[in-house]
């Protein structure tokens, strides 16, 4: 290709002087990166994700970045991602939900029992599972708003309650794929993109992120969620029905967990009352890596998607490099800290 040099007489672009009262002075590169990241809070997690991908592509070889593996990573993070959406909503209000995994599993057990044993039509079973999620969420919401139990404790309590109910209803028995209707297994079905199998579940998760991101940024409800998390008393004084906002958030989070349950059935290919271990902590981790503040009111759900992907890329990449499980645990710990530390550094500019 022929390289084109600029015509020597080209006039300098007109500089708009005095546009601001005080001219923005020259800032060193590092400072400019910091500022850009501050203005676009998703840049930090995105950078971490890209760096991680580059690192693993070098360490593992092109196998890491090929469509098949990307599709695999997407499948592996879909549950954490979906539950992470629920967790983000709740953390944005200044709460935390320890019962997400239990609610998710409980709704799968309900769906499975109904469809496989009670002979309920598949669609109805699925809807009832979503309803279960909503009921779980509204219990949490009622405890938090009506009885003023702090979210941590309310959901710690319901974690036990849902777990017990779950074991009771399921009788600790797994329901196998062949007893389940196709509808329940649908999120695990695949279609092909670039020769790589992609599950409908992965698509569902991505769609859910887009929808929730839209809701949070573009609707009044989203606005109120942020306001409640930012300053609950101020929001109340501004005429926002804070209790109603909170309850609705918990209910929506419950339904999202139930959808995550559906994905779980599709992914595992059965209904197992013991699934979902580690999902609580992983979902919170994804939210925080994504830059959402645990104190509420600040953050973005797309950050959670990035957070979940970062977790997935690390876990997949470390396995592919052949690191032993002991050192995977170690490295994961280090990486979580580094990812968030890097993100914090970009925020320091706010002073």
């Amino acid at each position: 290709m022929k390289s084109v040099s600029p015509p020597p007489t080209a006039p300098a672009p007109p500089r708009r002087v005095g546009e601001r009262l005080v001219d923005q002075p020259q800032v060193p590169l590092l400072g400019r990166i910091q500022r850009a990241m501050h203005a676009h809070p998703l840049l930090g997690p995105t950078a971490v994700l890209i760096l991680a991908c580059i690192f693993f592509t070098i360490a593992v070889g092109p196998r890491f970045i090929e469509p098949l593996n990307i599709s695999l990573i997407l499948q592996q993070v879909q549950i954490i991602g979906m539950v992470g959406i629920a967790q983000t909503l709740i953390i944005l209000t200044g709460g935390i939900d320890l019962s997400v995994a239990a609610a998710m599993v409980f709704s799968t057990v309900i769906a499975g029992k109904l469809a496989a044993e009670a002979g309920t039509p598949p669609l109805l079973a699925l809807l009832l599972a979503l309803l279960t999620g909503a009921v779980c969420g509204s219990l949490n919401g009622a405890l938090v708003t009506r009885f003023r139990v702090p979210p941590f404790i309310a959901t710690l309590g319901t974690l036990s309650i849902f777990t017990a109910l779950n074991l009771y209803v399921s009788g600790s028995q797994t329901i196998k794929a062949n007893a389940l209707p196709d509808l329940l297994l649908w999120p695990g079905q695949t279609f092909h993109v670039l020769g790589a199998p992609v599950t409908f579940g992965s698509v569902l998760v991505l769609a859910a992120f887009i929808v929730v991101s839209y809701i949070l940024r573009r609707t009044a409800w989203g606005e109120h969620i942020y306001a409640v998390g930012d300053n609950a008393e101020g929001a109340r004084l501004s005429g926002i029905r804070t209790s109603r906002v909170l309850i609705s958030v918990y209910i929506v989070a419950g339904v999202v967990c139930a959808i995550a349950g559906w994905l779980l059935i599709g992914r595992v290919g059965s209904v197992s009352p013991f699934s979902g271990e580690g999902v609580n902590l992983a979902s919170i981790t994804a939210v925080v890596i994504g830059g959402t503040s645990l104190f509420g009111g600040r953050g973005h759900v797309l950050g959670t998607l990035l957070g979940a992907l970062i977790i997935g890329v690390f876990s997949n990449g470390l396995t592919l490099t052949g690191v032993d499980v002991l050192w995977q645990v170690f490295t994961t710990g280090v990486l979580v800290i580094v990812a968030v530390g890097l993100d914090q550094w970009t925020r320091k500019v706010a002073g």
Partner: protein
Amino acid sequence: SGSSKPLVGLITKTDDNPYYVKMREGAQQKAAELGFELQALSGQGQSDNDSQVKAIENLIARGAKGIMIAPSDSEAILPAIKKARDAGVFVAVLDSPTNPASAADATYATDNFQAGVLIGKWAATQFSGKQARIAMLDLSPAQVAVDVQRDQGFLQGFGIDVADKSKIGDESDSRIVGHEVTNANEAGGRTAMEKLLQRDRSINLVYTINEPAAAGAFESIKAAGLENKVTVVSIDGGCPGVKDVKAGAIGATSMQFPLKMAGDALQAISAYIKDGTRPATSQGLDFTNTGVTLISDKPAAGVDSKDTAWGLANCWG
């Protein structure tokens, strides 16, 4: 990742339980002998299916030739195993059989029910003519397969009607004082035993899910001054456990052979890679039984057992 050796993965339930740590070490040794590269992975808990599924997928992606797995969930893991086998990977199940066992290429496992039956029978001989008061120290409220099989095996071996064999705690025998969960560790064993003793101080026979739980239980028995009145039985066959048998803290334990499981599985994988042969299962079973041996210094009539000297020579770690 640059090595040209064929890759084999080992997926255990947890990475901290000595049982699986020893299994991993044994496998590592054997793999080196056979010229494999071994990658060890694990779930995050006794019932963490999701991590194991991920581990299988990642191993397939890494191009593993064989996978050994101790499944946390004997049924939920099946689709992932199928995926691996469809990709041409030889899957050997270790320790806890899948349901059905035929879902894997080979299974090397302890018959956990049998392990329970052995200590149950042994205990029955110690309590002939004496009223037993039994404490059952189980794993977790979740009633996972190992937990149920060992618990029910023990009760059946002891001669108690277990009612539903797939359910802990539905027995109506008055000799059972109660069930408590221990999370299979010392602290849990101690607390559970204290609680049951407080409920009924006449307890004289204690079943424990594994030897760490037994060690914890024995601490509380000792603290209550009942060490001469209570018999503890357990399952595992780890070296600390055998030492406890020798010291009299545990009356008898059923020894399993995790190193043999891993070793046999690696052999089978090796053979399969070489010429495609598949191993046969033990007679009358749908899996290869790596056996259980009762270890006790008080041999009982009608129950085969080995003494602790043999136990110490054969324990797994």
